[in-house]
């Protein structure tokens, strides 16, 4: 829809304009040495010089817990009340292209069959200002799963640093356009810019289609047990993942009143699939590890038309026992 440039020094003013337009801004901020998305009041609070936030931007649309029902009992009757979970108009700033792409996975999961209004309304009221990657590390593999360090998919406005003073601002959607038109004086027309020159170099490391093709036949392979022997069964990989969406539902009460909460859950947990009878279809960690890989690279491509992985590398970075997903995928592709 158009290319503009914006001066680094104008971002403060842009933030001011967005805030005065009634939107909250989430952006990467540093807290005790850890970079996380948090609400910011002004641009100088935004962290710089990092590869990835620990948690992804998914929390803007799928919070770690949220109310999905509100009720109260009066004697034998129950009254269902209006739930308090309403979307807040939000601009998420500094979203990496991989995270931006993950929003389409989340959207696909929650839209199909039974549309989930809580996720949908949050997606609808969120504007994504993406930030292309100028750096990457050995855990990044976006290009192997159909993304790129400067990919525009999922962003409404994508910023790419093109020199010390300026960002290239690519307007992708109408939401992006409305950000620009809220402060047109801050943007200038971009001339011919070779965007790729300013992006991180992330080499393609495996063939996603080949992986999808191979996986079904590997269901009973001993490789899962071998790979997951050191896995300790925590949920760090799922919780930092931008496209993991599995959840639990929990009731909480205060006297006769209560709420039903949806909260993050992980296929890595032993209890995730445990039946009340004690039977567990995925009773050991290797089966749970297999589920994680199968779901992302075999089931979801078939069901949603997109892999459930965007190559951000967060799971590998966060894993306490160095379960490196990229390495594991390469090993899977080499298995005979």
């Amino acid at each position, binding site marked *: 829809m158009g290319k503009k440039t914006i001066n680094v020094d104008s971002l403060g003013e842009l933030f001011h304009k967005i805030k005065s337009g009634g939107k909250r801004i989430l952006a990467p901020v540093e807290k005790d040495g850890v970079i996380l998305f948090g609400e910011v009041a002004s641009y100088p609070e935004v962290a710089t010089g990092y590869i990835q936030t620990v948690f992804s931007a998914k929390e803007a649309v799928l919070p770690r817990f949220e109310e999905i029902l509100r009720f109260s009992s009066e004697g034998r009757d129950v009254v269902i009340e209006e739930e308090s979970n309403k979307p807040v108009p939000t601009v998420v700033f500094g979203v990496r292209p991989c995270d931006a792409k993950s929003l389409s996975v989340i959207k696909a999961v929650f839209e199909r069959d039974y549309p989930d209004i809580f996720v949908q309304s949050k997606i609808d009221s969120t504007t994504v200002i993406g930030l292309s990657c100028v750096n990457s590390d050995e855990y990044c593999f976006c290009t192997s799963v159909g993304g790129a360090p400067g990919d525009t998919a999922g962003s409404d406005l994508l910023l790419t640093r093109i020199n010390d003073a300026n960002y290239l601002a690519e307007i992708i959607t109408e939401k992006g356009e409305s950000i620009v038109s809220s402060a047109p004086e801050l943007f200038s027309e971009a001339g011919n810019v070779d965007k790729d020159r300013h992006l991180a170099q992330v080499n393609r490391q495996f063939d996603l289609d080949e992986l999808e093709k191979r996986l079904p036949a590997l269901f009973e392979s001993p490789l899962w047990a071998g790979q997951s022997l050191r896995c300790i069964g*925590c949920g760090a990989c799922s919780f930092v993942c931008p496209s993991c969406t599995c959840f639990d539902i929990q009731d909480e009460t205060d006297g006769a009143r209560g709420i039903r909460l949806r909260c993050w859950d992980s296929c890595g947990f032993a209890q995730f699939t445990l039946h009340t009878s004690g039977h567990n279809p995925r009773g050991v960690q290797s089966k749970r590890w297999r589920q994680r890989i199968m779901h992302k690279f075999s089931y979801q491509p078939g069901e949603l038309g997109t892999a459930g992985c965007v190559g951000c590398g967060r799971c590998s970075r966060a894993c306490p026992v160095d379960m490196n997903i990229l390495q594991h995928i390469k090993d899977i592709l080499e298995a005979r």
Partner: protein
Amino acid sequence: MLAKMRQKAKDLLSSGVVSTVIGYGEGSGNRVRALFIRKPDDADKLILDERCVQNLAVYLTKREVRALGRPAVVARVPVMRTIQQLMFEKQVAEGEVAVIGISPDSQVLDFPDLKSMAEYVSAIPFELSADEKAAVEKLEKMTAGERWNFWLDVLSGCSKCYACRQSCPLCYCERCTVECNQPQWVSVPSHGLGNLEWHIMRAMHLAGRCVNCGDCFRACPLEIPLNLLTQKIITDIADKFGGADEYALNAFKPDDKEDFIR
């Protein structure tokens, strides 16, 4: 010392004394990771340096690792302490595990049995480092209100991924209290109350058992200093009960001192 450790692993495997050696190997980037060595020739993949700190005793109670047969484990002092505690709690019995001990100055130690390992490690004083003590004291000096705000703040990021629990070799329960729902003792969602309850519970269930290996802190994706809680308890137990018990909360003295019971 590296050569000696590898040789020891080789010998244990080729003599059939153990079927797996759990040790450290090169991981991705500059990281190390747990290796499960099944063949004597693979023992050369084992490494040992200052990065090798994961408490490998966590694998001794893992079902799939147990299924591999008798393991040997590369064990620095905290790992040996863990095995001692696991023995006390009847999770590991004499003869079930072989230990390739590593002394504080990185010498390979030979133990004929777990009993001699326990004797060795009991002789090494169990105390916090100066930095750890300072961190605990810093919090103690704050007002109660400051401490409350400190903990609400650091715990606010917790997503309950349970990496702290899963990385802990002494959190081996098949069903954790947080998963007991009749009643629901701890709130499952990671809101303020759920997080506070979870971390109090975790620390209390490790009281007198924690060996201060630091894996819970290292495992946390947010680097929450949650081991401050167990370190505080370690300090208290040493101060008030004099330590030396295998499991301080499983014991008592008729004259334990307190100043708050009416």
